[in-house]
């Protein structure tokens, strides 16, 4: 799997590349800002791009803008955005064109190497990885309006993991439930929220997130 990494901090960039390589991925490009990243994507067409949101020259949303541009030009290139803090508006803007091959995670997540590389593989493989923090923010907003209030505690946990982009198997492993039970919860959630049930994980993410942000 070919990965391009973009971050203005050399230390982090190299550390991240080392981490990915030690997990068996090939880092084919390293960029210090969004312009460099776009050149790398143009020339090397990596499977996935991992980029910081805040980069030179203005240190605002360069990474996000680059991500949107890459998705327009190369829909098959997956994009995983890293940030020091998560913002639901950023996440939702990114997901406007669907949740497939999209990830949005806090930088801190790199500390759990296995979890992080799982997320990278999931996104590169056509799924999504939405930071639990984003999901939590959306849920808080939604719960404040009392709409997801009718879900049970367990269902809310499942909803949370589903929104992060995890598969039923992964959800079952995290919550120590059988896959059948998870499926039951998912069905119940979809019917309670009045959503069309979907099979593919990334469509499910979008459906749930769209519901949550509404």
């Amino acid at each position, binding site marked *: 799997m070919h990965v391009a990494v973009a971050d203005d901090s050399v230390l982090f960039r190299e*550390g991240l590349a080392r981490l990915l390589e030690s997990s068996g991925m090939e880092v084919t490009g390293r960029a210090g800002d969004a312009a460099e990243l776009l050149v790398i994507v143009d020339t090397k067409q990596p499977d996935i791009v991992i980029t910081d949101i805040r980069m030179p020259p203005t240190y605002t949303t360069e990474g996000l803008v680059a991500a949107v541009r890459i998705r327009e030009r190369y829909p098959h290139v997956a994009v995983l955005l890293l940030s*020091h803090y998560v913002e639901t508006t950023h996440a939702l803007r990114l997901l406007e064109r669907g949740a497939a091959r999209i990830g949005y995670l806090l930088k801190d997540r790199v500390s759990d*190497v296995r979890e992080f590389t799982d997320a990278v593989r999931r996104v590169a493989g056509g799924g999504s990885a939405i930071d639990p923090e984003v999901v939590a923010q959306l849920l808080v907003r939604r719960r404040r309006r009392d709409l997801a209030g009718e879900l049970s505690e367990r269902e809310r946990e499942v909803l949370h993991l589903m929104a992060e982009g995890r598969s039923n198997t992964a959800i079952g492993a995290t919550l120590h439930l059988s896959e059948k039970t998870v499926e039951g919860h998912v069905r119940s959630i979809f019917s309670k929220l009045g959503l069309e049930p979907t099979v593919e994980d990334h469509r499910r993410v979008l459906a749930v997130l769209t519901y949550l942000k509404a």
Partner: protein
Amino acid sequence: MAARIETLHRTGPAPAIAGAGIALAGTALAIATLVLVILDRQSPTFYTLPGLDAGWSQVLRTVVVTLGLITFSVIGGVIVWRRPQSLLSLLFLVLMVSLWIPPFAGEYATYGLVVAPGSLPLADLAAWTPKFSTDLGFMAGVVFVLCFPNGRLMSARWWPLAGLTLLYFACDLLIGLDDPYPLWVGMLATTGVPVTLPPAVWPIGAWLGFLSGAVFWARPVTLILVAIYLVRRLTSASGEVRLQLKWFVYATTIAALTLALTLADSVPPLDWLPDPIRSSLQQFAGSETAHAVASWSSVLSVLAGWVLLPLAIGVAMVRYRLYDIDVVINKTILYGGLAIFVTVSYGVVVGGVGSLLGQRTGLDPVLGFVTIGLLALLLLPVRARLQDLANSAVYGKRAKPYDVLSDFAASIGRAQPADVLLPRMAELLRVGTGASVTEVWAKVGDRLQLAASSPDTKSQPDNVLRTEEIASRHAGGASVEPVFHDGQMLGALLLVKPRGEDLNPVERRLLHDLASQAGLVLGRFRLVQELRESRARIVASQDVERHRIERNLHDGAQQRFVNALLALGMAQAEGGHEVNHDALLAEASREVRAGLNELRTLARGLQSPLLAEAGLVAAISDLADRAAVPTTFIAAIPRRYSESTESAAYFVVAEALTNAVKHSAAQTIGVTISETAGRLSIEVRDDGIGGADLTRGSGIIGLQDRLAAAGGHLTLESSPGGGTVIRAELPCT
């Protein structure tokens, strides 16, 4: 008669030709009339103007009437040209024709029936027409007035008034049928023209004779009603209509006054009046004075009604925006009043006193001197009174200057905020001086700011640099009075008078006195304004500061800790590979330490921990020690101060040091702190390149705001090449 709205029409050649035709025809008619007058000259003169012989009286009357006819014709032509489709133009033409006919037809009849009997055709008919046309003119005139200036009545309630004039017209016409011989006709109305009416119609007039009393009163009653109508219309009108009406009312008033005076020697049927009043009225009407007044007024009324009125109507219909009627009215009242005053005084002194002394003829030289002396004495006060009268008539009631001042003093006394007081000041000044515009400018910083104006323009705040620019914003004469307080220029008052008016001495003094009172308020305004600006700067600098801290955290500590996490995560994942494991742990701990360092630096930038713990001297010593340029610090302060004082002092030194290190290229820096007479003095001096500027760089302005908040102030001395000295002073608390 359909009421319609007069609209502006694009005028083509047709109206222009019609207008020129009307003007030419009228002028030709006037000249023809003049020729007939000259031919009729040998006819016996009826009455001459008192004070003139018969010949000159004729000349004067002829000239005045001819002038009136030509004026009417020309104005009629202009109106038809410029407003061809207006009902008012039509009425004006009717009025014009009804004025043309009597003099011409009268002279025509005089020539054809008296001077050279049988020489002209239709002379009989010509002798009759003046009777119709006068009434027709009166009717057209009243309807014109009622519909002026927009072709509509003020409200439907006034239609009966138009009906009344029609009734009057019919009655007067019919009553005239009783005794036709002789008719007094012609431009000079000096010749009785023998016109024989068929005897069959005589009974009509005789039968209607009982109406003659009513008809006599119908005319003045109609005129009074029309006057009431005009006044009501004027008071309820606004904008352009009001401007047009003003012109019209002005001319009408003068015409009506002169017309009323022509009645001085007529004896109305006054049987119903009690005897003493009636007999004295009749006695006056029969006197020579009354006759003189009436005769001369008739000349004046022709001038007013036939020259002034059409001119005013023309201006009102075509060019009313171009001329300022207020000035005209004002001056008319002033000079007309003066003329009346001089005439009456002369009459009283010479006539009254002279007759008491038993002098019948000639003017006694002593009496002449007395008269001139009296007039000279009284002229100025009377003029001032008349000017007041004229001003109040034109501009409404103006406050007396001292009312204005005491009003304003009371407002200051009530300690109202400046943004209430300043508009009030502008308004008072305008009301007190009758200015068209007044403005109050306040000095804020090094600029002059428009703080209030009357009438309120509601514009964006305006700024200028110099006093001269204030006046140059207004075309024409603006008076500007600077406002000083404690020898400091704090602003200026500006005043623009309406065109044609000058500031009189009383108003000038008011402007001056108000300016001297305004100092206090403008000073207050400036403080408030500067405080407001300083607050805005503080908020802005807080935002900048917050942003800086966020950036520092993000690029510094946060990044370090993420790197440490990354290393730790990898170390954890590596597990068994020992070599990498130790290196990764070392990297993680290095990054955490670096992050902590960054946090410490940041925290010290926010607030020196030393300052709170050990005080100003210790904290500044620490600053001086860590400065990148060798810095000496001399402190002569014996004690600790309040947190806000110490903190303000600390930041002055910190910011000044940062600036010196960054920008001055200094070799050495000296910091001195001392306390004298309850005030803390701080001086930071460097030997660098100088040229620093208070207005540049937000850091120094931020310090100024900070010091101002603590009750202190800051000065900067920095000449290019001469190093920089920043001095701050603040009260010890």
